[in-house]
């Protein structure tokens, strides 16, 4: 399973890799529930993660330093933010790095000045998912593409899938498999509007 598109060098090193999209996952920009900010534009979000905006009062919040929480290099979620929000720009080195979705979420839940990003499916009450360009991340806004920060979940095989791997991919794409993904707040491929 990969949450980042295959890179050019991965493709050149393993030319037979086949990627099958199985769901679309929104990436929620999360802050502490005590934070009075509830909306950011994509540009504001970009500037926060690149380090151009460092205080919450620059985006209408209280006067406090923004504590940026990143995922590690190589993470699909980090890759998604870098491509979609940062448009390929670089993350500021001023933030901290946590090694998992759960670690980012629990850090943000404990620090009222923190901002991070996790899979929409992993958002719970301990954190607040921000609206981006005034669009809240929901199943529908991710499915119809109005919530901009989203990426495919891919199943990757070396060569065309056969045997159990093929059976598993077929099941994942079947209504029963897609229903399981839906129950976990991942957007089923069949619900995704053509992009």
């Amino acid at each position, binding site marked *: 399973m990969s949450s980042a598109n295959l*890179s050019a*060098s*991965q493709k050149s090193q393993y030319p037979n890799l086949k990627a099958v999209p199985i769901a679309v996952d929104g990436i929620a920009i999360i802050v502490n529930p005590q934070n009075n900010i509830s909306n950011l534009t994509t540009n504001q979000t970009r500037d926060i993660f690149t380090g151009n905006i460092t205080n919450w009062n620059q985006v209408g919040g209280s006067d406090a*330093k923004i*504590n940026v929480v990143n995922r590690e290099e*190589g993470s699909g979620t980090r890759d998604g933010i870098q491509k979609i929000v940062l448009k390929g720009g670089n993350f500021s080195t*001023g933030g901290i*790095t946590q*090694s998992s979705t759960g670690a980012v979420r629990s850090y943000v839940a404990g620090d009222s000045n923190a901002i991070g990003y996790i899979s929409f499916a992993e958002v719970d009450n301990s954190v607040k998912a921000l609206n981006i360009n005034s669009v809240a991340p929901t199943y529908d806004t991710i499915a119809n593409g109005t919530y901009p920060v989203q990426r495919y979940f891919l199943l990757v095989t070396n060569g065309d899938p056969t045997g159990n791997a093929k059976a598993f991919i077929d099941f994942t794409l079947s209504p029963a498999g897609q229903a399981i993904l839906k129950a976990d707040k991942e957007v089923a491929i069949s619900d995704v509007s053509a992009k």
Partner: protein
Amino acid sequence: MISIKPNRAGRSLRRSATQDIKGRTIELLLLLCGISSVCAIFLIIIFIFAEGLPFLIQAGPNFLISSVWQPTDNFADGLWGIFPIIIGSLLVTVGAVAIGTPLGVACAIFLAEIAPAPVRRILVPSVNALAGVPSVVYGFFGLLVVVPWIRGQFGGFGTSVLASWLILFIMILPTIISISTDSIRAVPKEFKEGSLAIGATHWQTIRSVLVPAASSGIIASVILGMGRAIGETMAVLMVAGNSITIPNSIFAPTSTLTAQIALEMGYATGAHREALFAMGIVLFAFIMILTGLANLASRRRIAY
């Protein structure tokens, strides 16, 4: 008499022949164990160098002195500077050792010389228990207790150089305490008796005779503690913040070589993966230097 002697000699010869075979078999097995562990170490070294050395040569000295770390799976697209990570590793290690050494040595002196037997019976197992706590537990304690405390008291992220020091110094205490205690105990009795006999107090004896005589062991314990600190991964990963910048205060986040390798290994491919192995080589060099120093220190025995 004459008939018994060769009999006895013959029996003992037969016994020694079977014992000899047994003994040789055991010796051979032990030799094999020894060789296999040496082989394992060499295989690991060869593997790390095979994976990391080509990258190290390609990246050149820039790898060590440049400060921007933007790894990608393609060498040409990435920026490969680990200078802040090396500084972070050294800073975290030196700080933890600086806090841990006085405490550890003081505790060792107490255990070896001052503590009455009942106290020792409680303290020694407790110190040993510290060594047995998994590092992830230390890390979790740090994340839930130390990090929020630092954030509340001093602001910032909480995950910081200070948090790493506070967790690491506890983790290296058992190493420093147990080896220092042993080396103080190993000082010949005559030294202490002689010192007391010429009228020195117990404290003067400890300060001027026992600790200097045990100094090589104490230094070795500190260096081994240093090795433990620089090699610690999980706990540091959880409390350091893993930020690849040179920290401007002890409340700022930092990153260490081990934590960075563990953090990024999961998703690293291509050049990124090789770079992590190259980081492993750098770490390996540090640990070899420390181990060498520890050997030197413990060999430099004061002539009794």
